[in-house]
């Protein structure tokens, strides 16, 4: 390492020539070293590439996980047709399962890339662990039960044309499950897979605070989800960016309404295309911010909000049933009269 340690390449009887050779070696060696350092810095992403298309850290992590099959691998025939129907429900839920959807969301809004994306509760990972025990209803749950839950809460089925989730055994469940089964082609069963669910963030020492979250929101989220959290629509009135609170969002019973679950989702997936842009603290704060706003009521509520909070939300990181800024949270939003843009 140190020059002294190296034997001198210079023959002592011909110092001039030796000097040149030595300089040459130093110069070439140094040149290579500089180039190597620069190349390394480049690779590590300290210097930005002008040509694009290089892997970054997150891509490597994603690439190491289970890879579900691409659309082009959907088989022909009746099975393929069922997979496509399931996929259509997953991507465009309010049109393909319109009777059971009471907001503007699609499954794929929370389970990204059509349920493929690791760390956004991908369907290939979910498929392999059901039926399983869930604390939410203290029962062994089948996949149909689980999907029913997402319709009831995430899709706010209480405000749908039928007023509830698809009845047991409905084709919607079958088609969705065939799609999930296909996504899990080649996945090991019964094993917890890497990339399953949403990541769990450790609570930070500063705790979470909606006021700090409001700033995070304005800087990182409002461009897409709107300053008022109501999402944005294109010229045809189609939702492009989903609502994060209010009557067209998930209801108080949804997993996403818990601060910890939302924080994990946001950290790994938001802003769209920029996984892990936010610090854990920012993710907690902004999750608290969006989940301290009013949204459709918890359909399980029969008595008061406080009672429902005790019965169904005990021990959860949620604003449901709490009083924030002098306002009881969880009372719900009125059923939207028109299902289109606000």
């Amino acid at each position: 390492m140190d020059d002294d340690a190296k034997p001198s390449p210079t023959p002592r009887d011909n110092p001039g020539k030796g000097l040149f050779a030595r300089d040459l070696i130093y110069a070439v060696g140094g040149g290579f070293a500089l180039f190597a350092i620069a190349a390394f810095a480049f690779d590590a992403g300290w210097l930005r590439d002008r040509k694009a298309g290089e892997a970054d850290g997150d891509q490597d992590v994603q690439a190491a996980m289970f890879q579900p099959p691409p659309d082009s691998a959907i088989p022909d025939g009746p099975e393929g047709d069922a997979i496509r129907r399931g996929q259509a429900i997953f991507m465009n839920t309010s049109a393909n399962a319109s009777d059971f959807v009471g907001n503007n969301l699609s499954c794929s809004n929370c389970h990204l890339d059509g349920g493929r994306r690791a760390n956004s509760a991908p369907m290939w990972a979910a498929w392999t662990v059901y039926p399983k025990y869930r604390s939410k209803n203290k029962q062994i749950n089948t996949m149909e039960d689980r999907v029913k839950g997402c319709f009831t809460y995430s899709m706010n089925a209480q405000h749908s044309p039928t007023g509830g989730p698809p009845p047991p055994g409905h084709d919607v469940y079958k088609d969705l499950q065939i799609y999930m089964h296909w996504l899990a082609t080649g996945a090991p069963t019964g094993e917890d897979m890497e990339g399953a669910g949403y990541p769990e963030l450790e609570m930070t020492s500063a705790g979470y605070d909606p006021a700090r979250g409001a700033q995070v929101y304005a800087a990182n989220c409002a461009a897409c989800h709107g300053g008022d959290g109501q999402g944005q629509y294109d010229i045809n009135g189609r939702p492009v960016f989903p609502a994060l609170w209010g009557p067209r969002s998930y209801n108080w019973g949804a997993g996403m309404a818990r601060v910890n679950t939302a924080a994990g989702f946001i950290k790994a997936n938001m802003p769209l295309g920029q996984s892990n842009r936010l610090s854990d603290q920012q993710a907690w704060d902004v999750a608290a911010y969006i989940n301290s706003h009013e949204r459709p009521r918890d359909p399980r509520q029969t008595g008061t909000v406080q009672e429902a909070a005790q019965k169904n939300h005990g021990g959860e990181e949620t604003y449901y049933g709490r009083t924030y800024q002098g306002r009881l949270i969880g009372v719900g939003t009125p059923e939207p009269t028109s299902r289109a843009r606000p």
Partner: protein
Amino acid sequence: MIRRKRTQAAPPDGPEETFEPYEEFRRIPLPVYWIAIALAIWGAVTLWDNAQAVGVGRQERAEQIEETPAAALNSGAQIFEARCSTCHQPNAVGVRSAIPPLAGSRFVAADPAVVVQILLHGIDGPIDVGGRTFDAHMPSFASVLSDAELARVATHVRQTWGGDRQEITAAFVRVQRARFAGRGAWRGGEELARVVDPALGPQPSAGPAVISAFADPAVLRLVNQGRGEAWACSSCHGAAGQGGANIPRLAGLPEGYIVKQLQDYVTGRRRNESMQTVAGALTDAERRGLARYYSGLRAPSTAKPELGGDVSRGEQLALYGDWSRNLPACFSCHGPSGFGVAPGFPSLAAQHPAYTASQLAAWVGGGRNNSDVQLMNEVARNLSDADRRAVADYLATLPPVPAVTQERR
């Protein structure tokens, strides 16, 4: 530094006594050599890399040219998938309260002239499909699909969802094209029923015609004659704002987006000499007026794939992204069909590929640095050169946004 250390710590038989006397011969310090050699290596590597990229590009272009005749022979189903499914959905069920279904629609089952007329001119006003009223904007495909392609997609739609086996021919489309040449979009179901096929039955009627005449003469003067350094916009961006090659199409871009770009040229967050000069010479009110003018302008597409990109790869990126590269679908931000989401997300449909590709490169190269939350910086960084050309070429095949005046939006 190294040298000083050596003087202190060298063993008695170390090199320094033979070394030092020659010190004065050394005119150029060693670090300079290092840098020179590092640069030389870098240069060689870059040259080699470039040569490779050019080679690959040339090969891809050659392959593309061979493929073109085949691509033009896309089946009706493929055209539907690439041009219609983003709105009407792959299974033609539409989008609730926004886009009508084709499956079971009376328009699809009616006289063949109906679908063809809708494809040629688009629809703006209210229509009733399956007992529901829609009042949105169906784009015109007249400038982006040939008669033969229109015939194929219309046949596919009618055979699949209209229950009619009859084949629509290119000749039939040609006749239909001539029939109402020059007219704008159909003003809803009522007009289609009255003019094209009475069998469509009762349809909601459109309100009074939206007067699209844009009257502000001061803005029109800026557009057509310019003033001092605010050169006439039309001299570069074209008489109808359609642009060309490296000059962007402006027609139909969101108003807020245009205002922001003009400001960004002035502040230097976006760099371009001509536009910096032009934008700098405009007042705030003029920028807003021009933005309003262009955002409400409808113009046929003059864009065509021209970069030899792989259009089907481009379609894939636009509709689904490439999550293995952390790349969301372009349309998840730019709106389905690339029609934009006002005010922040520009329309990309019918934009000129050379311009689109140049912007994608500018985000990586630093010439453009004006995207909120660095959204486009991240996207552009994850696109390879071939992907940029692919997606730019695909976007050029889309119908232009059916721009609406601000009141209607």
